């Protein structure tokens, strides 16, 4: 690779020095005079009507400035999901409601001069609840006569609230039952996942104040600043232009911050008191009252010929969306749309299921977005099928996976809670991912050696293949604006939301590459609704792919304008000019002029103008990245412990723009996935109270839990992405659950169908408990 190129190099992140030196970059790192501290009162009941609420004592408490509850805020149904308009999530949420629907639901908020006074204020609020019957099991929730979670007349966009159904779908291509009856080899099973939490190191936090014109400013830990502005404008009945949302540096998101959770309360406090306000969730609140991952039961049935070619593929899902339906429909759709096209040989395909309300805390977007739960089932079922066929699991995948030039009817049938967009795969490095991963893990040698390595230890090897998408086609838009300064440096303005992923750097690399100038000449301003153009935000694996293409188009347009000025200065035709390493040069005569000379002329001397450009991008396709994962595990049949020894992830994300950060996305996602597989689960008491909302009892992986990890890039060239890039942020979180389960199956022959795979569950399946 050319040493001068920006794309494909791994420069130090442009925000890196500020992060490692502890600069004041996060939401909470500013000090606002007269700040009000907010604390939220949470429901102690899983389902109750608020009969009476008395806030008089709290309001009289010294230091308390404002108390809000359902009587004192606008009542307008909305969704907290930070999605494009119109949101495909039901409007089933109010700022405060007279009904509470889970333990941890909002009841009231107190704003005071100090956190201590706010907390004391909370303790003085008297609430009389009328407890209502609650339902926790999603299978029970959809039965006739089950307690109804949403009875409010304002609810919109849920499939059938009377039956607790947010979504119901039954989509069939071909004739699944008939084909299954005829299929020579069949497999079926149900795989289940529990409630997981994102566990960003920075919990949700919002600060708000009024600017000098009396406009509302929010500095908030969000993945979706522009959606926050739009949603707040509607629910607060405030003109959109009177709201400014600033996303500073964010301490991790993973989907949990694709939500509007605190901004409405801070906004109300600031608007009503004129004072700055702040709410920060505690770790316990983050676990219980922010967002989780949808627990799903995923039933898969497969039918195949003796030749190992899939004939039937069926996935049926029961998804628990807790008390509110945010992201419920779209995540369910994605569980199918991001998995089923992978095996496009099957002629008979069915995708069906229900997304169901219960009186439990609320799942929302989580990295992987449903594909994770879908792949756990699908890739475990594929290994079982391989066993029935007597085929190497790797060979079964080879015979069935999608390839470039191919399509799947699922792309058109399943979209974001509605029909999708047809597409033909333009780039697919899956064959090479499988091959390189096979060699790296030592598949052939290790699969043929004895599994027992000690008196009660066994080793096994598992694998799986995966795809995701890149952005939501024909839905989401990203835009960029660039200006050239008179010294030949550039201002890059992007709505794109860097939540630690490095997108500020990656997008500047793309601009630097197009204009052939060094990265350090770019000043990046991102995610400020007053300053930057629109961007949908950080979700759906879209920033590099979608925002990157907007930046590329913008830089190309600006480059043309620069060359037009250079043509005048050099008296050379524009078509013969190129931007090369900070100068505009004629390919015919070699004459050149520096960007600084061009800039000074444009600002001060002749033909005066601001050289600038804007571009927007919407994609017509969502090209999937592909990946093959391999794991070697050791199972101790005395203790039930599973120890992952080695993990290989071979990834086709097109051309990685910043390989160092892309590798970080791969490792970070798969270590999070190892937590899903082995140790994480938020558990609940019979009355719906979270039992382990803290780090001692909810175990995310530490540095001591890592297997030996190897990452491999398989380079392909995606024509619809900037410089051939596809996404990489989500795909690898899908791997560990099925891959570890398959490795354990190989080691000791037990099928783990419920995550996490605790020692207890292993011993139970071994018949030792």
């Amino acid at each position: 690779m050319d040493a001068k190129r920006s794309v494909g190099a791994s420069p130090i992140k442009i925000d890196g020095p500020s992060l490692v030196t502890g600069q004041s970059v996060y939401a909470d790192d500013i000090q606002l005079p007269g700040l009000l501290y907010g604390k939220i009162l949470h429901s102690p009941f899983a389902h109750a009507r608020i009969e009476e609420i008395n806030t008089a004592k709290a309001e009289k408490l010294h230091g308390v400035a404002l108390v809000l509850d359902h009587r004192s805020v606008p009542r307008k149904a909305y969704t907290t999901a930070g999605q494009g308009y119109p949101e495909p999530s039901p409007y089933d949420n109010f700022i405060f409601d007279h009904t509470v629907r889970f333990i941890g639901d909002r009841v009231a908020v107190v704003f005071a001069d100090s956190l201590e006074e706010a907390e004391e204020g909370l303790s003085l609020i008297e609430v009389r609840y009328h407890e209502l019957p609650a339902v926790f099991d999603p299978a029970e929730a959809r039965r006739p006569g089950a307690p109804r979670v949403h009875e409010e007349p304002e609810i919109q966009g849920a499939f059938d609230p009377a039956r607790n159904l947010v979504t119901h779908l039954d989509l069939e291509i071909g004739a699944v039952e008939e084909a299954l009856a005829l299929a020579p080899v069949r497999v079926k099973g149900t795989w289940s996942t529990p409630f997981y939490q994102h566990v960003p190191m920075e919990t949700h936090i919002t600060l708000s104040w009024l600017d000098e014109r009396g406009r509302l400013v929010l500095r908030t830990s969000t993945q979706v600043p522009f959606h926050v502005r739009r949603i707040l404008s509607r629910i607060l009945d405030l003109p959109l232009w009177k709201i400014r949302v600033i996303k500073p540096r964010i301490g991790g998101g993973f989907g949990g911050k694709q939500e509007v959770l605190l901004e409405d309360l801070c906004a109300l406090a600031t608007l009503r008191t004129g004072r700055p306000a702040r709410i920060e969730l505690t770790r316990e609140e983050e676990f219980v009252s922010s967002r989780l991952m949808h627990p799903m039961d995923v039933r898969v049935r497969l039918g195949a010929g003796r030749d190992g070619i899939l004939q039937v593929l069926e996935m049926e899902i029961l998804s628990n969306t807790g008390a509110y339906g945010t992201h419920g429909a779209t995540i369910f759709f994605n569980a199918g749309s991001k998995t089923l096209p992978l095996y496009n040989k099957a002629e008979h395909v069915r995708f069906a299921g229900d997304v169901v309300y219960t009186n439990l805390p609320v799942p929302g977007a989580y990295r992987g977005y449903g594909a994770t739960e879908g792949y756990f089932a699908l890739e475990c079922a594929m290994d079982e099928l391989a066993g029935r066929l007597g085929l190497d699991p790797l060979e079964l995948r080879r015979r069935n996976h999608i390839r470039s030039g191919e399509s799947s009817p699922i792309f058109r049938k399943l979209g974001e809670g509605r029909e999708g967009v047809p597409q033909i795969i333009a780039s697919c490095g899956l064959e090479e991912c499988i091959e390189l991963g096979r060699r790296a893990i030592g598949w052939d040698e290790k699969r043929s050696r004895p599994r027992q390595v000690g008196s009660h230890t066994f080793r096994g090897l598992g694998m799986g293949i995966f795809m995701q998408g890149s952005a939501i086609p024909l839905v989401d838009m990203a835009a960029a604006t660039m200006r050239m300064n008179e010294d030949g440096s550039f201002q890059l303005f992007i709505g794109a939301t860097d939540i630690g992923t490095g997108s500020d750097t990656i997008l500047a690399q793309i601009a630097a590459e197009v204009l052939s100038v060094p990265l350090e000449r770019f000043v990046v301003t991102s995610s400020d609704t007053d300053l930057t153009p629109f961007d949908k935000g950080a979700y759906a694996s879209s920033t590099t792919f979608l925002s990157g293409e907007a930046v590329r188009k913008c830089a190309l347009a600006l480059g043309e304008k620069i060359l037009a000025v250079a043509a005048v200065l050099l008296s050379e035709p524009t078509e013969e000019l190129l931007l090369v390493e900070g100068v505009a040069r004629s390919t015919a005569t070699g004459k050149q002029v520096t960007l600084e000379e061009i800039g000074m002329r444009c600002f001060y001397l002749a033909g005066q103008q601001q050289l600038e450009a804007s571009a927007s991008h919407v994609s017509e396709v969502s090209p999937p990245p592909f990946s093959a994962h391999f794991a070697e595990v050791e199972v101790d049949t005395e203790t039930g412990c599973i120890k992952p020894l080695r993990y290989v992830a071979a990834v086709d994300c097109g051309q990685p723009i910043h390989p160092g950060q892309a590798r970080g996305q791969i490792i970070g996602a798969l270590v999070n996935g190892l937590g899903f597989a082995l140790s994480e689960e938020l558990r609940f008491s019979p009355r719906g109270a979270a039992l382990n909302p803290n780090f001692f009892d909810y175990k995310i992986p530490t540095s001591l839990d890592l297997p030996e990890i190897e990452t491999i890039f398989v380079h392909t060239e995606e024509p619809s992405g900037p410089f051939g890039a596809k996404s990489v942020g989500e795909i690898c979180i899908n791997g560990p659950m099925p891959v570890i389960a398959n490795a354990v199956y190989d080691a000791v022959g037990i099928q783990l169908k419920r995550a996490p795979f605790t020692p207890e569950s292993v011993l139970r399946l071994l018949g030792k408990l």
Partner: protein
Amino acid sequence: MLLDFVLNGIETSWSVHPGESLFEALRRHGRLEVKGNNCGNGECGACTVLLEGVPIPSCALLAGRAAGKRVETVSSLGTLEHLHPLQQAFLEHSAVQCGYCVPGILLSMKALLARESTPSREKIAIALSGHLCRCTGYLQQIEAVEALGSSHPSAAETNAANCQDREGDTDGR
């Protein structure tokens, strides 16, 4: 009550509340380089500082316990213009994503390198294990420290030199 201690090499005297954690005292006095205030009982490690050179989560230590002791925050490492080798190594290895856990981690790594100039991967992983990081999966952080250990035989000396530089920087505050 009055807390007299040495913060990043400077004799410091602060009024602190009884029962206030060192973390709360640091943030209240504007030491915003100390991040992470939301587990509140030493579980995540983000708010780690060095107390007499030993890493400790500042949220789990009463401010008063720092009396007469040396406390170091990440500001005792490098500056924006002159990064400490550890900070540089973390950036070069793409070991920083959101960065929220990083100031605490860097201090634990500094303490590790002061004890041992070329720590093994296992030692690095053990020193990291008091810190939770959800973004990176730790591997690039381990690689960064490992590379630093092997390329800087006397990392401890570099650290000490850098601390002295910082004393000069902060004198005027």
